[in-house]
């Protein structure tokens, strides 16, 4: 565990970049430092690998003051990833990645083999190994940066806005990749970003910093979204915090109905018996075909090309309430289609029903919090 214990950083010009910050970074999880520009995120991160020395306070790594170790040893036990990757332009990709193993005295062959392994791990084609950084796209360079940081298998990874210089699509890919790698490797990651969406997506814990380097709130993303500590945090989370919070609520408890689901060869009685305004028609395997009003359906001869599109379905339990609500909002009938992992319809649910589920979840959340509040 990394323990930041009432640390202050005052730069020689008098700027207080970090002010009595205390933070426990749990092992094997992603802790995100987020906040507006200039709030001291980079300074905090760089104090952990002693690129910046604190003015006051101490930082402990597994209970030991980080100043007790030779600074180069400390840094070699922590991967460091920066914005724009900072690759060595004169070295090939494979040599870039092999840098720390080589510094630690590994043989050339072993280091290069390890580098090739890591290229695969971060989703880089090994055919890029002998290229130089300028021959790679920004997203690829960033992957190399991550691979280089992981090369000597350090327990800690420090990442300073690693994905902020790439376009949103590439960024999403890199974020997913990081989560996947973290799943496999279980590093202790401290991740700096100014993007609250990125923080909420990646963080196990999120520390929101405010100007002057003070901690505004330290909480899990779900807690942050449901109970911002003050107006600053609330503003920082943005106007759609309520919607984003739904990402953390499961859709498993939604009550599905199958009354409005009919197979394409349904009988007239079955069509008439449903009583629903719209019916979801399925194929013989149970996969959704589309929506229709009961009056339009002719028993035994349903024209599938005349159906309304059913839109994207959701998987109860696997998808969040946010996804379920999104499906309902985008559906032409206002009903979301639920399917199992194989894509077979398990039922449909209305916007109203989702709304009630949200209210119920919020009420549960409040009693939960009331339960743990001091």
């Amino acid at each position, binding site marked *: 565990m990394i323990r930041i214990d009432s640390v202050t950083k005052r730069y020689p010009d008098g700027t207080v970049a970090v002010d009595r910050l205390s933070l426990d970074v749990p092992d094997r999880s992603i802790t995100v430092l987020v906040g507006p520009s200039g709030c001291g995120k980079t300074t905090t991160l760089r104090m952990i690998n002693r690129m910046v020395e604190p003015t006051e306070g101490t930082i402990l790594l597994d209970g030991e003051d980080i100043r007790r170790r030779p600074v*180069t040893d400390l840094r070699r036990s922590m991967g*460091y990833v920066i914005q724009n990757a*900072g690759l060595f*332009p004169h070295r090939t990709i494979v040599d870039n990645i092999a840098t720390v193993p080589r510094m630690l005295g590994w043989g050339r062959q072993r280091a290069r083999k390890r580098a090739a392994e890591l290229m695969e791990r971060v989703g880089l084609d090994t055919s890029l190994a002998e290229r*130089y950084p*300028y021959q790679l796209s920004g997203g690829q360079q960033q992957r190399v940066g991550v691979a*280089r940081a992981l090369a000597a298998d350090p327990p800690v990874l420090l990442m300073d806005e690693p994905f902020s210089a790439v376009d949103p699509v590439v960024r999403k890919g890199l974020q997913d990749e990081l989560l996947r790698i973290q799943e496999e490797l279980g590093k202790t990651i401290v991740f700096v970003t100014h993007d609250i969406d990125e923080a909420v997506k990646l963080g196990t814990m999120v520390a929101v910093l405010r100007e002057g380097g003070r901690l505004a709130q330290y909480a899990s993303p779900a807690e942050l979204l449901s109970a911002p500590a003050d107006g600053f945090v609330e503003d920082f989370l943005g106007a759609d915090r309520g919607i984003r919070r739904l990402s953390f609520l499961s859709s498993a408890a939604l009550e599905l109905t199958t009354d409005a689901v009919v197979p394409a060869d349904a009988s007239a009685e079955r069509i008439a018996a449903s009583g629903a305004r719209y019916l979801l028609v399925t194929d013989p395997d149970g996969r959704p075909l589309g929506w229709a009003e009961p009056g339009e359906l002719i028993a035994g001869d349903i024209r599938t090309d005349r159906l309304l599109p059913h839109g994207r379905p959701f998987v109860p339990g696997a998808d969040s309430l946010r996804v379920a609500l999104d499906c309902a909002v985008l559906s032409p009938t206002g009903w979301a289609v639920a399917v199992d992992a194989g894509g077979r319809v398990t039922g449909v649910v209305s916007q109203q029903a989702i709304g009630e589920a949200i209210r119920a979840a919020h009420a549960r959340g409040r009693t939960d919090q009331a339960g743990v509040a001091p």
Partner: protein
Amino acid sequence: MNVLHFINAFFSDGAHWHGYDGIPQRLLEHVRYTLLALALATAIGLPVGLVTGHTGRGGNALAFVANAARALPSFGLLVLVVLLIGFGLLPVMIPLVVLAVPPILVTTYEAVRSVDPSPVDAARGMGMRESRILLRVELPVALPLILSGLRSAAIQIVSTATIAAYVSLGGLGRYIVDGLYQRDYEKVVGGATLVAVLALLTLAVFWAAGRLAVSPGVRGR
């Protein structure tokens, strides 16, 4: 026309190709002075430029010294040194080195300063020692510029090493000095042509050195 005639006459005269005053001998002497002066100037200018460029300290002092050195006329300095310590190789080396150190020093300093800070930051962050950062990151990235400083120093030495002849040493300057004295313009033009050819050869050598020593990752852009 006259010049071409002189050149032709000079190089086709078989007597100019043999003996202690022959072209091979003079060329060799000239190359020797040049290499020695360049080596000395590099030994001074390169390390100082690298270290000041890496730390970023002493840049102003360095610019001052370099400008002062540039303001010294090489020939005047030669005369002064000879008056002080007499004839020999050393008084020739001093003005040549004084001439060559500033371009090496200043370009090396600027080259290291202009290296993109993020790879350097990354290197430091991964626990690389300062000396290794300088030699394994900053130097290779700054190398094209550093070589250009060495190249201009080398060219200046090649053309200025002719002054060695004034203090009765050899080199291609011999032809120019003797030719002027003897009013043998064929010799003067021949000597000057050889200096020019040597300068071109120097350019070629540096071009080849750049191809060999500079990483394609740095050169490629």
